[in-house]
């Protein structure tokens, strides 16, 4: 990478991180803070801020770890084999595989969403994508063990798990039938950031 392309890459990174939607987020956070301060008083406000900062400090290492995993998986994954497992032609079996994968994916949204972007880029079918993330959300085994069981009890957790078991597959079937256009982020934005890492990745697919 020459220093000029490197500079462009950094500029694009900053533009990406602090784009228009960032400022919407920022304004929303500020607005909610004002409402909270006005309605509940300074003490509740400080409590909320302290809890948020603690949560952020707690999440950052996990986000870094999860994004590293997603980045490596993105480079290393044998994409042709993936798309056979959960691609357009994978049928009902693809939905079952996606659901099972969602159940066992460890970690919070910081791991699941980057992985979803990876399999989306690898040519997974829309039904499988929806089934995977739905399954991770409602059936994810890690969340059930850490949150459901201790706070709601074993019997409740088991009931919820069994009742919800067919739902991701149902969601995947619905997703396949919805007449909506789908363009994933990866394809939508051929920005300078992407173009640096993408050609190399393509050669990697050809190499296989």
């Amino acid at each position, binding site marked *: 990478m020459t220093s000029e392309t490197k500079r462009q890459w950094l500029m694009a990174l900053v533009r990406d991180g602090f784009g228009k939607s960032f400022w919407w987020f920022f304004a929303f956070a500020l607005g*909610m803070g004002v*409402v909270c301060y006005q309605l509940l008083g300074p003490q509740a*406000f400080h409590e909320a801020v302290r809890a948020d900062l603690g949560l952020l400090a707690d999440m950052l290492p996990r986000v870094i770890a999860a*994004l590293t995993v997603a980045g490596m998986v993105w480079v290393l994954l044998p994409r042709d084999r993936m798309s056979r497992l959960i691609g357009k032609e994978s049928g009902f079996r693809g939905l079952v595989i996606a659901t099972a994968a969602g159940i066992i994916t460890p*970690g919070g949204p910081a791991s699941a969403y980057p992985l979803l972007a990876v399999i989306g880029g690898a040519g997974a079918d829309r039904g499988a994508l929806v089934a995977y993330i739905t399954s991770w959300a*409602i059936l994810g085994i890690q969340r059930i063990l850490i949150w459901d069981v201790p706070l709601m009890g074993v019997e409740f957790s088991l009931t919820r798990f069994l009742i*919800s078991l067919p*739902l991701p597959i149902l969601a995947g079937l619905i997703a396949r039938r919805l007449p909506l256009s789908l363009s994933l982020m990866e394809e939508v934005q051929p920005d300078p950031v992407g173009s640096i*890492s993408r050609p190399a990745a393509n050669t990697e697919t050809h190499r296989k």
Partner: protein
Amino acid sequence: MISVGMLIIFGAPVVLGGYALSRQDGSFRQGLVRAVEQFVKLVPRMFCALVAAGFVAKLIPSEFISRFLGDEAGVTAIVIGSVAGLLIPSGPVVAFSIAATFAKAGAANAALIAFITAWTLFAVHRVVIFEIPLLGFSFLRLRLLSVILLPFLAGLMTMGVKQALAWVAVS
């Protein structure tokens, strides 16, 4: 269990990174570049969303809502549970402590399951922090339309199973 989860979360990048490095074909570097790109895309938004979520969670009147979630409210309780789950813009700490509050206040299982399902599916913070930056609006639209009925369905199925069991016990 938490420690095993942590082990996987922090062990996986080391193992995968080591493997990528050992291939010596630039995979490691490409993987890192992608990780940095996504990190920059996520973290500033994540920061704002987390702070906003903390404030919103304080503003939600959970004790008030829990009064409408009892067994006698039937299908209405399922609807209220689903909508309440939609509105929690926060992680499992807040969502599950609210669910536990509801449970203590005598909420029906069907309403609780609808609530948790709705929260896991629609958690606003997760959508704005991760889903929109990484997958985009067209995926969000597809997913929301695909799963919109699931919380009601989960609640109704819970109610149905309960009534079936009660019926079996009586006859």
